[in-house]
């Protein structure tokens, strides 16, 4: 029972993750200017990836692969944390010039 429960949970998480991703891409497409799109790019995608990573981690046969997938998610958090402000900084410079 517990195995099927984990599979269902993973399926739910992966479903949620893909939905959030779809939402994020829709947001990037629809939002008017660069700064709003940054939100979609950083926050929503990170959430989507987090859910996806957790879902996949559950599915892995041995736990070490699960840890690897979660570290991927943590690394992505760092890189999007730096890229977001950098892009914003550049956008401000571009507007002022």
């Amino acid at each position, binding site marked *: 029972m517990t195995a099927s429960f984990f599979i269902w949970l993973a399926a739910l998480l992966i479903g949620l993750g893909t939905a959030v991703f779809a939402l994020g891409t829709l947001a990037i497409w629809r939002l008017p200017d660069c700064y709003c799109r940054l939100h979609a790019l950083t926050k929503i995608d990170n959430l989507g990836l987090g859910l996806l990573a957790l879902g996949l981690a559950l599915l892995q046969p041995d736990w070490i692969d699960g840890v690897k997938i979660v570290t991927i998610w943590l*690394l992505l958090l*760092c*890189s999007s*944390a*730096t890229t977001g*402000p*950098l892009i914003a*900084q550049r956008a401000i410079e571009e507007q002022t010039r």
Partner: protein
Amino acid sequence: MSWMLIDLTLCISLLILAVAALYARGLQQRVVFFIAFGLLCAIAWARLNAPDLALAEAAIGAGLTGALLLSALNDETDPQPPLTQPRLGRLLTTAITALLTLALCAAVVTLFPLHEGIAIQQLQQQMPHAGVVHPVTAVLLNFRAWDTLLELAVLLCAALTVLNLAPARPVTAHDSPLTGMLTRILLPLLTVTAGYLLWTGAHAPGGAFQAGAVLAAATVVLRLNNNPGFTHLRVGALRALLALGLLLFLGVGLLQTVLGGAFLQYPPSTAGFLILLIEAGAMLSIACMLSLVYLGGHLHPHWPCHAPSNGVDTWKRHS
């Protein structure tokens, strides 16, 4: 059946990205599409059971080449003025390439199903004596070692020319606290993964090239906050580092012929160790060459001689 769907979507998106990368309006858009195409291609390698290639494609194909192209974006690139082909010329070339592609597709279709080649059968028989477990590394560094040796020479040639062409360009400084934090996190991780990749190369996907590429990525990250990384060495040390990989390869190869046996033939007992030794040397050289190719040679304007005692190196002037 489900795999068919995934393959089709992957291939179609690959084609769309390729067209976008070739025919988008601005150069910047083309470069971004090209990087996306590279990453998608890495997924395609993974799908086709080629993990080594996925690693290499992501690190070198999309990563480093993408960084290279991005850094080259700000050199104003005038279209080749002299070679403006007449309309007829351009039409002719596109017609010929279209014809060649059609012939290629027709030939490819007739190829499948493939029958088992002699090379693979011999490979399976010889694998136990290869000294490493992972077949790709065995092919790279044992069965077809001469290819890899020459490939190191190709890389050396590119790096030397980049150094020869070094314009004395000042290093643009654009570091900010954010990138400082990112490098502090990424740098140790990259070096550790590089070492891990080098070590696992013997029995799992990995090896000198992927490790070298990861180290080169470390230089790219360092370059973000304006530190030239380990390429900023004395000219003598840089020369040694560049030559290390090829020197080891040739040295080990020649050693075997001196002890009897063919060139590049490793005795079964010490094959594993020798391959690891060569891979370590190759990793350092590849990392140095790839980062030089990315950085450009302006850190060593007086290459290959030492900087004149009076002249101060350009880097010190700016920090």
